[in-house]
């Protein structure tokens, strides 16, 4: 009988699969207590490194054409679909859900990626436009990414709960630091392999597994995080929102899956004016 080759799970920071700088790992067990893997336990320093990577990747990603960002998001959908058996297996093993339900969840994640792939070049028409000001000026408003988005994924569903708000933020041109499901981190970390084979530039998405109560408050008060999308547990919510208030970091709960609201939460509107002569 052949001995299977196990995977060493890693974080994704700045396009590289890395261990936690802290050297810490935690065992991840399945619902019956079977040991599945050791997962790096991300630290506050890992989060800071991820913010740096996301900030560095922001000009390039937000500067791409909306069309190109849509293409990359659609590529995420393609690669997700191609790896759906594998991901469904990981979800089922790690969370105890049935393979059938896990397969549905992966399909939903694919649908989310496709949905947001199509939003990238419609946001300007739906949320912005020309303002008919009562003076001789051309005034127009365009949505822009808020910048570096920190995303706290829910415990469950461990994959689509991450993919939906992540793709929404990417559609708007943001770069992301995501704390994957704290209870079930495997599918979220596996998503890193999908992203790195989907033309997502290095640093645009950074994935960290860890204890949200340890890392998230630090992320919320980080001066270079522009918005926090909090799908994590309610126990932390008020503290995180308070910490966000210290920098006027936008604190938002996630929008509904496959919705414009989910994208809106990661956008700013810029209005520009120029004289047109009278």
């Amino acid at each position, binding site marked *: 009988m052949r001995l299977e080759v196990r995977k060493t799970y890693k974080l994704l920071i700045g396009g590289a699969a890395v261990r936690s700088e802290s050297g810490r790992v935690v065992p991840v067990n399945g619902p019956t207590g079977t040991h599945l893997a050791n997962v790096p336990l991300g630290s506050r320093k890992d989060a800071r490194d991820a913010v740096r990577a996301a900030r560095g990747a922001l000009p390039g990603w937000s500067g791409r054409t909306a069309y190109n960002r849509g293409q990359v998001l659609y590529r995420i959908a393609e690669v997700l679909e191609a790896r759906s058996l594998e991901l469904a297996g990981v979800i089922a093993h790690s969370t105890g859900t049935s393979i059938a339900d896990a397969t549905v969840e992966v399909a939903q994640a694919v649908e989310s990626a496709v949905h947001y792939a199509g939003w990238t070049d419609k946001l300007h028409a739906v949320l912005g*436009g020309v*303002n008919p000001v009562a003076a001789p000026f051309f005034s127009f408003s365009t949505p822009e990414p808020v910048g570096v988005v920190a995303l706290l994924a829910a415990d469950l569903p461990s994959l689509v709960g991450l993919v939906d708000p992540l793709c929404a933020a990417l559609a708007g041109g943001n770069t992301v630091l995501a704390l994957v499901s704290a209870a079930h981190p495997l599918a979220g970390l596996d998503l890193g392999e999908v992203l790195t084979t989907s033309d997502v530039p290095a640093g645009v998405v950074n994935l960290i597994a860890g204890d949200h109560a340890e890392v998230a408050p630090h992320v919320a008060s980080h001066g270079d995080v522009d918005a926090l999308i909090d799908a994590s547990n309610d126990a932390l919510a008020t503290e995180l929102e308070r910490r966000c208030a210290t920098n*006027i970091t936008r604190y938002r709960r996630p929008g509904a899956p496959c919705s414009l609201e989910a994208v809106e939460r990661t956008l700013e509107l810029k209005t520009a004016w120029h004289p047109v002569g009278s």
Partner: protein
Amino acid sequence: MSAIPYAPAPESVRPRLRTSYDLFIDGAFVAPRDGSRHVTINPATHEPITEVSHAGVADVQAAVDAASGAFPAWSALPGAERGKHLFRLARILQERARELAVAETLDGGKPIRESRDIDLPLVAAHLFYHAGWADKLAYAFAGRNPRPLGVCGAVIPWNFPLLMAAWKVAPALACGNTVVLKPAETTPLTALLLAEIAQEADLPRGVLNVITGGPETGAALVRNPGLAKVAFTGSTAVGKAIATELAGTGRRLTLELGGKAANIVFADAPLDQAIEGIVNGIYFNQGHVCCAGSRLLVEESIADVVLAKLARRVRTLRVGDPLDKNTDVGAINSPAQLARIRALVASGVEEGATLHQSDCVLPDRGNWFAPTWFTDVAPAHRIAREEVFGPVLAVMTFRTPDEAVELANNTRYGLSAGVWTDKGAKALRIARRLRAGVVWANTFNQLDPTSPFGGMRESGFGREGGMAGLREYVEL
């Protein structure tokens, strides 16, 4: 060059003011339950104008209760009917515009030229614009289901008192919400006149409530659990306190906070227009403007000529009686604000920047500060980093467009910015790279109800004006 002598041209209209104002709650002026009475003074003369009430906690509760009571009927009213109420308010505001402009100038110190030609026309325009939306919300949010939020608490500043009231009240009412409005402590008058106009217009009682008072009144309103939303315009420090207070409550919040806008002048700019833009950018409304162009970034090769032209132009600004129609720069809003301006200007001198001031003659009584600009400013100086909220400009130079963008974005704020260049592509490219909610290219301080206004970063979140502004007053 000193100011050319002009004969005085005093505004002769006088507003109809009562000798004492109660709180406007549930459609009637009522004496404060647990509040107190205070005199509001004219910052240009230090003379008392009239007496107003400061709402206590029980007054705030009564106002929120009145707004809650009015919400079911108001939100159930057909949109077209709500719209007609707003159109009617807009018309009365136009009819009484001059009187309101004078009241604004008396109470706040801004030149009558500005309150008459900018504040009041924009107030009416905001009401008209949002009146039209009331029955068209389904078009604004196609494919979604816009519903009102409930009672909105609006806490507004003293720099554009009635205009800020209009920015909050018009979209809130158009979307079917009811409002408790708390004007600033030093400028309560026009909000009270707005309350009288609401009575005159037969606006259903409780739909708009006006509670005057100081910071404690605002704090009591903001933390009232009966509110569905808080809309605040004011300082970043207070904005952070409100955001902290509301954390975990699920109540909606929009914040329009401070700014430290960069006004970037390239060597290829139309210079005379740019000088007008710089002057308007910082000395408009005594610099009591959150989007004021308080940092001038000028391309090094033209710095000397720009500074010479600026010095010449600033000395022609007429500083003095706000009720004189010739006045360009009026009174500083309050002694407290004057003290803040003086302290920051002193820090500029201490930190090594070079002080320049207009040689205008300032009146003996009232709060006054001469138009001021600093050269030899370093980005680390307090006058380059902190919002002065007064007629004080910090001038810095740059050599490349990249450096200009770097300097402009080197702030925790992100409300507005200006770009002056003759090259269209350059203006658009720079505008795109500036982290600011509003970018004016070859103009400055333009506002319009159709045009969303609001900040990025520590200048707050949410927009006012346009469809984006409506979005902040509906549930979808």
